[in-house]
């Protein structure tokens, strides 16, 4: 017990860890509230809704159904009443009146209610609340049918004995069997929003993973770095007892943070949307229609917490295994980042193959997402047998947790502390002896050696350069999004470039062609010699052409008109493939992915430059020297920026090169105002200049990130801590912001893009300079701890 206590103290005794937990907890809740405010659920963050839902959830279902039906009918009638004001002719008005009279006859109470609502003023929100309640009622009423259909499908398939060995066949039966227990459950009306919003919130997992990772740093790396592991291992209880205590402490911390983070979200959700009845059947919430677990909301929430906890425990045990086996901190970070990224990618992948299903569903992010994991009944095929995803995940996760823990314990107990060195054969030793370091009186040489050789950045740099070169050999596919993109591309291949007389004639001809085509539709419709079927076929054929080629030409025509206008404004307007070049300049997904990638690369290379001096207290020795302060700082900074520039080129250049290879450079000088999306851009900035401005914006953001990492390295003085804090402050916000199209890593394309870009660049550079000065001051005025 004592050992567990001391291991816990190694983590909880660190102020920074406690501050981080509090910070992440608050950020998590803040992010949740922010997302709720900007989501469609924000309309339910309202006292009136809470009062309405409370009232109806306390009634019996039948009573509630009746009242809700009346209210929604009243709103339906009210909307008809309001539409009468829009009637343009007497006939239209009479139609509305007839409808209203019919309502009055069939639903007198609802009609009176609608008149009351009309008098009190139209309340859109209230209407939405009742439609939500009506949706609940309809869902509850349809549920028995939903369950019944499973049995029907299974029964109907049982007649076809041919497919009995098929997974789909067995799955039908298993599904029916698993849902049979829900036939008699009673669903009720209630407040669904807090349940769905809390259970579908996924971003908390990122914070949890960061905290779990940091716990592993303190439990498994700290002893190694402070060299106390030798002392510990030589003690009576320094092996199996110590490692067991570490794992128990890790699991306690993991469970604790899972509980408090989940509790925080549920509390926040309850505060925003009102209390929710924990005794309601989970299937009462329509999002969980496909859940086969016979649980109430309270039990479901507890189970979801357990699932999240198991996912986090698995992450914890894998991180621990990596820390125990590998001594290189950058390597551990890289592997961990790769594992988490792969899990994330596979969880979000739209690949629809059986193979990818295994990794999509046996996945820590999937298991943490209880709205999917527990909320949607899924079976996976294991040797053609349908196996429930919950059972499979819990089994696999448990095995992995046990396996990784056992391997870690065995390795920890049995490993020797010595580093195994490769013994070279004698001839190679003799050759090696000929190549001794001859000496250099430049600090940079020492720094370069540390960076490239000691930190193995030479290999890393070679790998990323190689990957960049390979990546630039790829061809980029045309960004087809809509049905008319194919003909549009064909048009652009003909028209791209200057607006010539020939092109104008071509457009005129096409214009005439499509006008004739439109008229043809009318003609066919009016042609009485053709049968209905023939007319339908012909019209459909023409419509298909109009929907694709016609739509594409319309875009081209609009583009042409815009170019003509731009020409009159003195801009040298040209035809340009809008799809291609809009995507070339302005793809927010690529922007954020590239930024995240380069930050991750910087995290592998940059922290070591400064933290290496604090690791063995070399800082004590080098700072009392003549050049050991500012000069050393700037030399180190030059190494940092060399790495940053290399990584920047490796991340951003391949796309540009691939683009040129795939589509050429013909339209790079075209002003971006020729592209519809950028029509509000001020000035004559060309596509190439816009792209370069983007690059400058990105570089300034990257420089700022690099300075932030340098600052963390100097202030925290610990490599792994720098990695974790940088991940939380730099990487995670990028991942969280990424789905929001409005926030960009560069400048936003609106109005004076040049000015906007230079503002972004200036602010980034200025902030980077401030961070540089702060870190310089800290590095040179380093005070030993008293």
């Amino acid at each position, binding site marked *: 017990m004592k050992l567990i206590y001391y291991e816990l103290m190694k983590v909880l005794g660190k102020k920074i860890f406690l501050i981080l937990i509090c910070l992440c907890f608050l950020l998590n809740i803040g992010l949740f509230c922010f997302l709720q405010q900007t989501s469609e659920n924000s309309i339910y963050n309202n006292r009136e809704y809470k009062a309405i839902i409370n009232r109806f959830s306390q009634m019996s279902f039948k009573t509630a159904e009746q009242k809700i039906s009346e209210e929604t009918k009243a709103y339906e009638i009210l909307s008809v009443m309001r539409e009468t004001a829009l009637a343009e002719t007497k006939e239209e008005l009479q139609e509305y009146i007839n409808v209203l009279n019919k309502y009055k006859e069939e639903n007198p109470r609802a009609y009176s209610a609608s008149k009351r609502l009309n008098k009190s003023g139209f309340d859109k929100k209230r209407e939405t609340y009742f439609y939500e309640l009506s949706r609940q009622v309809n869902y509850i009423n349809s549920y028995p049918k939903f369950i019944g259909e499973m049995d029907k499908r299974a029964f109907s398939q049982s007649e076809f004995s041919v497919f009995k060995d098929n997974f789909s066949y067995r799955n039908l039966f298993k599904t029916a069997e698993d849902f049979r227990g829900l036939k008699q459950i009673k669903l009720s009306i209630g407040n669904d929003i807090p349940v769905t919003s809390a259970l579908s919130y996924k971003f908390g997992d990122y914070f949890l993973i960061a905290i779990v990772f940091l716990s592993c740093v303190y439990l498994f790396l700290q002893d190694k770095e402070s060299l106390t592991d030798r002392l510990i291992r030589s003690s009576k209880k320094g092996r199996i007892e110590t490692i067991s205590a570490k794992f128990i402490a890790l699991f306690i911390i993991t469970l604790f943070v899972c509980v408090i983070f989940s509790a925080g979200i549920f509390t926040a959700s309850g505060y925003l949307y009102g209390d929710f009845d924990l005794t309601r059947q989970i299937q009462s919430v329509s999002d969980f229609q496909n859940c086969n677990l016979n649980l109430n909301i309270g039990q479901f929430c507890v189970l979801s917490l357990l699932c999240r906890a198991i996912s986090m425990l698995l992450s914890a045990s894998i991180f621990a295994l990596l820390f125990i086996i590998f001594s290189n901190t950058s390597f551990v970070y890289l592997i961990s980042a790769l594992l988490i990224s792969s899990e994330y990618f596979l969880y979000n992948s739209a690949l629809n193959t059986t193979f990818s299903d295994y990794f999509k569903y046996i996945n820590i992010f999937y298991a943490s997402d209880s709205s999917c994991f527990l909320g949607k009944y899924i079976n996976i095929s294991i040797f053609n047998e349908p196996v429930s995803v919950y059972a499979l995940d819990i089994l696999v996760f448990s095995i992995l947790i046990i396996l990784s823990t056992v391997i870690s314990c065995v390795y920890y107990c049995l490993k020797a502390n010595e580093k195994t060195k490769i013994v070279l054969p004698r001839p190679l030793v003799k050759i090696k002896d000929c190549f001794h370091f001859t000496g250099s009186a430049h600090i940079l*040489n020492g720094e370069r050696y540390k960076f490239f050789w*000691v930190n193995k950045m030479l290999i890393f740099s070679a790998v990323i350069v190689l990957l960049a070169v390979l990546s630039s050999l790829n061809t980029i596919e045309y960004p087809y999004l809509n049905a008319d993109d194919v003909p549009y591309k064909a048009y652009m291949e003909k028209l791209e470039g200057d607006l010539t007389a020939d092109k104008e004639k071509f457009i005129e001809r096409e214009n005439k062609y499509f006008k004739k085509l439109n008229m043809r539709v009318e003609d066919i419709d009016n042609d009485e010699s053709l049968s209905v079927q023939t007319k339908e076929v012909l019209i459909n054929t023409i419509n298909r052409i109009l929907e694709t080629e016609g739509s594409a030409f319309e875009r081209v025509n609009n583009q042409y008109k815009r170019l003509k206008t731009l020409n009159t404004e003195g801009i040298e307007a040209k035809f340009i493939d809008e799809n291609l070049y809009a995507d070339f300049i302005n793809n927010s997904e690529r922007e954020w992915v590239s930024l995240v990638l380069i930050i991750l690369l910087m995290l592998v290379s940059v922290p070591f430059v400064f933290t290496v001096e604090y690791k063995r207290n070399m800082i004590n*020795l080098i700072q009392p020297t003549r050049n050991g302060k500012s000069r050393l700082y700037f030399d180190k900074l030059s190494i940092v920026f060399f790495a940053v520039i290399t990584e920047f080129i490796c991340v951003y250049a391949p796309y540009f090169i691939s683009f040129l290879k795939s589509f050429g450079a013909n339209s790079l000088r075209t002003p971006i105002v020729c592209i519809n999306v950028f029509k509000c851009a001020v000035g004559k900035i060309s596509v190439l200049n816009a792209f370069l401005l983007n690059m400058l914006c990105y570089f300034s953001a990257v420089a700022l990130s690099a300075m932030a990492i340098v600052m963390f390295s100097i202030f925290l003085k610990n490599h792994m801590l720098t990695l974790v804090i940088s991940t939380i402050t730099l990487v995670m916000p990028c991942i969280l912001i990424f789905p929001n199209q409005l926030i960009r890593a560069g400048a936003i394309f609106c109005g004076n893009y040049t000015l906007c870009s230079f503002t972004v660049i200036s602010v980034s550079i200025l902030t980077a300079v401030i961070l540089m000065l702060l870190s310089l001051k800290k590095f040179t005025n380093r005070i030993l701890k*008293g």
Partner: protein
Amino acid sequence: MLTLEIKNLNKTYKNGKVKALCNFSITLTPGVYGLLGPNGAGKSTLMNIITDNLRADSGKILYNGRDIKKLGKEFRSVLGYMPQQQGLYDDFTANRFLWYMSALKGLKRKEAKEKITELLKTVNLTKSAHKKLGSFSGGMKQRVLIAQSLLNNPEILILDEPTAGLDPKERIRIRNFISEIAENKIVILATHVVSDIEFIAKEVILLKEGSLIACDTTENLLSQIDDIVYEVTVLSGEIEQLEQKYNVSNIFRRGDEVIARVVSDSLPDELRKTKVRANLEDLYLFYFGENKDGKSEKA
């Protein structure tokens, strides 16, 4: 003349609860100064303040009359420092490490080359120059650290336990080497191995609980305790009692008898005792030993 003046240096830790240096003042001129004191006396604090690794709460340090804080780089150019329990870059060879330190100390290439060759020879590491520091023993690492402290031919040399981990032969070599070079340097040598400074120190600085107890030549300090160091012969069973009552510096056994070296000015006459010549270890015990008989402990 080269001087290092330390004036009224004060340093506390833990918001003033722990006094590491208390109005410490001293003027140093070329020569070796041995810095003696028990653990927590303030030796490392003093050295860290001189090397600008630590900020004093108050006080000044003047190098040739000029404040070292204002001199900054200029002072660090003339400083050589060898800290205690210092880690090194495991992946650097000794040669590369010394070149790196030369670069940090601002040496030109030619000068650095000469110095590195010379110092590797001095510390007897020429053969191991191209081996990685990670493979060095503790003593070898010490020697590398001594070598790097001398690269820039410093005027102020701060050595913290320079002979720790060295075998006797190496210890003597280093000691003699320090003595040779100290003619035109101020060398502050902190050590628990009093024999390191007994013969080479110009003056011994005694530090206790942050305060300067004494600063004088070895001869003058020893003359204070000349009459109170004895070799006392007792039976085996009596030695424990003797240790409890008096400051005992050395014990050696001869058959059933034990001869103990005692520092005390109140030994009873009935004890079989012979007056012996005092050494620095006796002095240390005299100043920093436990106050057992209420008289013998000076400080």
